[in-house]
């Protein structure tokens, strides 16, 4: 039978199932197909901290949401138009976010009394009318898959496992996705096991054909490709982009990359990615702990490498002392904090922006450190390069504050032309820079560049420049140990001035204020960029006038930040914390910034942000 085809501008799909059901993989594949098709998109994986909580339980539910459209997409979307629920737990955990009228595809095989009981369903929601407000497609995915794979030389378990490919095939049909990438992917994935490869491909095709033939689907959807700048695209997650950015910074600076790291969610994937790139001379050191990770990176920096350490909140706590050492040694170092929900162990797989003040102040003494924050998955690439530029030019540790949402979320990325990437020029000092009283030349490790206030970087192996540096206060210039009170005051202010001075070496904060006469500025940082952008678009469609600016440099702030803020009657600062940027701006500019905060481990929903904006704009008369 031929099906009716409906046009859609945008679709939000959420795949939800048990940790063992392979939902992340399914989501990834559908994403690739969608990307290749040419839609713009944004994704949000959401999985539990446990590797595999007991099958069929709520804590065990793993989900993947994808938002794709024929226009540019800014967030993974608030509420799904389609929910694929592989078991009762997945249904229960996600139903409350489903808008009425949404499509609900469930694997009816899993709705057994036992599974229903596990999550406290007295009766099967498929039988009673509790789902009446949705388009329910109840399909026995497991048995259909097993049936499709009869005759294959694989275990029943493996056959059942293939149900996610059946579901993928079905949805690929439903949204008319190109399937080539998935087929080649499956060949690769099961390269060693041809039978399994064939089985999964068969399941996938079976799913597609099922969609074609079943009554369950009367309509099929079409989402036209989005208009995007011409070029070569790939889909990329924040952690991959950050890794590539670091490799690029190494290539463009000529400094070998050294990563010292200790595994921690959600940062580990950067270590995993960089460990692959030996051909770029990348050295990855899996340390015994976070302190050793940053220590080794600092040692490598002392030796002339681009030292990097990657971690998340708890690891930053532990690195605090070593970061202070890096501040006073004035050596380049990049510290990537992939923020997760705290305090303490908190919710390791969830996103939060609550390490900003830690990055600003989390060391004893006056120990200023520049801070950058990427605003989208692909922006992690550029941010890494910018961090390397600042770290090497100013001989300073630099913080990069990403978060779990950016790290695992993905978006299409216009692959840049390598030659267009910034060149990072680093010059090691090779000659003495000072004269002894008797006129003979000597090397002063703390004789600063007049303009940048950076100290010289002379690496071991350079004859005649042998010198010692350390954590004790140093005499301005010579760098010798000094307990002189006035010298200490001078050095404290010099270190601060060096970091503050970077403000003149970074792009000004630019504002998106189309009508030019908005009274309210929404000011954000980091991963809220997408949600704020989407919310701003929503309210503008209603004719609301509002401006949006987003800070990529958090310390120091762009030189024009004061002017920008001064131009608006009200400043609204949405953050996934209790108002950390707001605190900094209030202190710095005495502006009565309005904080809008949600600390749920989840990105903002654009709707709730839109409400917040409406409130503030409404009150602004």
């Amino acid at each position: 039978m031929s099906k009716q085809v409906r046009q859609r501008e945008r679709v939000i799909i959420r795949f939800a199932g048990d940790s063992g059901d392979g939902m992340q993989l399914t989501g990834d594949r559908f994403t690739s197909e969608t990307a290749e098709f040419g839609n713009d998109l944004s994704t949000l994986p959401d999985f539990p901290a446990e590797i595999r909580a007991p099958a069929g339980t709520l804590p065990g539910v793993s989900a993947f949401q994808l938002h794709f459209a024929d226009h540019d997409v800014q967030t993974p979307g608030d509420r799904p138009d389609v929910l694929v629920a592989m078991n009762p737990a997945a249904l229960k955990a996600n139903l409350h976010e489903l808008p009425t009228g949404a499509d609900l595809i469930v694997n009816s095989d899993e709705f057994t009394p036992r599974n229903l009981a596990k999550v406290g369903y007295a009766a099967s929601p498929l039988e009673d009318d509790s789902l009446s407000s949705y388009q329910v497609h109840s399909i026995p995915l497991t048995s259909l898959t097993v049936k499709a794979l009869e005759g294959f030389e694989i275990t029943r378990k493996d056959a059942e496992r293939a149900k996610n490919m059946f579901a993928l095939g079905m949805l690929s049909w439903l949204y008319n996705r190109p399937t080539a990438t998935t087929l080649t992917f499956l060949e690769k994935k099961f390269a060693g096991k041809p039978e399994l490869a064939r089985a999964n491909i068969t399941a996938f095709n079976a799913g597609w054909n099922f969609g074609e033939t079943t009554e369950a689907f009367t309509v099929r959807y079409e989402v036209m490709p989005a208009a995007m700048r011409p070029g070569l695209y790939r889909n990329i997650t924040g952690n991959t982009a950050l890794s590539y950015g670091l490799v690029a910074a190494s290539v463009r600076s000529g400094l070998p990359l050294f990563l010292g790291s200790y595994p921690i969610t959600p940062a580990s994937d950067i270590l995993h990615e960089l460990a692959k790139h030996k051909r770029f001379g990348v050295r990855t050191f899996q340390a015994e702990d976070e302190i050793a990770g940053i220590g080794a990176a600092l040692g490598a920096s002392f030796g002339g490498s681009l030292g990097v350490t990657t971690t998340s909140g708890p690891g930053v706590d532990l690195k605090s002392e070593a970061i202070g050492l890096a501040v006073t040694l004035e050596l380049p170092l990049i510290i990537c904090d992939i923020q997760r929900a705290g305090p303490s162990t908190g919710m390791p797989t969830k996103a939060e922006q609550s390490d900003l003040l830690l990055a600003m102040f989390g060391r004893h003494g006056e120990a200023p450190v520049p801070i950058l924050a990427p605003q989208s998955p692909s922006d992690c690439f550029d941010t890494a390069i910018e961090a390397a530029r600042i770290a090497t030019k100013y001989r300073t540790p630099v913080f990069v504050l990403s978060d779990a949402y950016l790290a695992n979320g993905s978006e299409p990325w216009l692959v840049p032309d390598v030659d267009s990437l910034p060149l990072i020029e680093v010059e090691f000092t090779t000659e003495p820079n000072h004269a002894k009283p008797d006129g003979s030349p000597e090397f002063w490790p703390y004789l600063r560049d007049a303009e940048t206030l950076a100290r010289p970087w002379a690496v071991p192996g350079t004859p005649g420049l042998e010198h010692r540096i350390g954590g004790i206060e140093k005499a301005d210039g010579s760098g010798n140990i000094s307990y002189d009170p006035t010298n200490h005051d001078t050095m404290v202010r010099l270190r601060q001035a060096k970091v503050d001075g970077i403000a003149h070496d970074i792009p000004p904060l630019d504002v998106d204020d189309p009508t030019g006469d908005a009274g309210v500025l929404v000011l954000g940082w980091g991963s809220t960029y997408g949600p704020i952008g989407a919310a701003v678009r929503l309210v503008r469609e209603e004719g609301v006038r509002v401006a949006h600016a987003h800070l990529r440099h958090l310390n120091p702030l762009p030189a024009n930040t004061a002017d920008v803020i001064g131009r608006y009657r009200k400043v609204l600062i949405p953050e996934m914390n209790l108002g950390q940027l707001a605190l900094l701006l209030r202190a710095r500019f005495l502006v009565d910034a309005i904080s809008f905060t949600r600390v749920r481990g989840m990105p903002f929903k654009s709707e709730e942000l839109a409400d917040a904006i409406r409130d503030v704009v409404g009150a602004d008369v």
Partner: protein
Amino acid sequence: MTVPGQRSGLDLVPVTDGDKATKKHYTSDQEVRWCPGCGDYAILAAMQSFLPELGLKRENIVCISGIGCAARFPYYLNTYGMHSIHGRAPAIATGLATARPDLSVWVIGGDGDFMSIGGNHLIHALRRNVNIKLLLFNNRIYGLTKGQYSPTSEVGKLTKSTPYGSVDHPFNPVSLALGSETTFVARTIDSDRKHLTAVLRAAAEHRGAAFVEILQNCDIFNDGAFDILKNPETRDTAVVRLEHGKAITFGANGEKGVRLTGRGGLEVIDTTKVQPESLLVHDITHTEPALAFMLSRLGNVDDGVTPIGIFRSVQRATYDDQVNEQIDAATAAGGVGDLAALLSSGDTWRID
């Protein structure tokens, strides 16, 4: 000492074109700020005069320390150096040595720095067998913080922090190192310049992590801690000098010796009463550390009998060499990384 056929720890470190360096050459312009009479002076002097003998380019030598009196060491040595933070020097050195195989990296720390706060970095650097030389200045006390007991202090130690006597059992640094898979383990004494220098040279030449415990006198807070090993009356019977390939004997005229018991232990015997063949011959090259471990239990300062010398020196692939070999191999196989290719790897599509 490098056992024949072994690769030297200095293999990749550039040497001077013949011009002889001197002690002065290795002495920095910084005023030494240890207490008069501190054992650290002797160790510094030994280093300053033995380093030139290695004939290395001075600029390729780096000395990294943590915090403590001992940790001030790098300031006084005219090489590259870093006086870092308490306990972290082994980790910092691991990064430097891995990134720069052309350097001779020395790590200096006290018993607090290495055995207390830095214990974990120490044992991990040792097990990884990073090509760094770790010198433990063991004065069995916290000097810089004015005299608290340390993890190597004897039980019952009366200090500022233990007015009723310390109650925790100390580490035997040599035993701990051997339990940590260390490939080179030695013990020496600050005041025995000849022995100290010989051990340092052997450590320098060992390819891999070399752990050297140097018994060092703190004449302010733990004065005389090692007198029994120094005092002419007692030293002959207290110090057991381990020498590779030689039967283990001690005493003024070698009247005491060490031999294996039938029960899997060691015993000290009167050499005049037994056949020389029955004495244990010291062999630092045993692949298994068990016998070296047994020797480390022969006794320590508190029991009088204290073995010094090289306990173990075996060759095992070093962490840094293998890391760099993986890079070389991968590059040799696939060529130097191509950034453009990397960025456009994976599923891509073109919009025109």
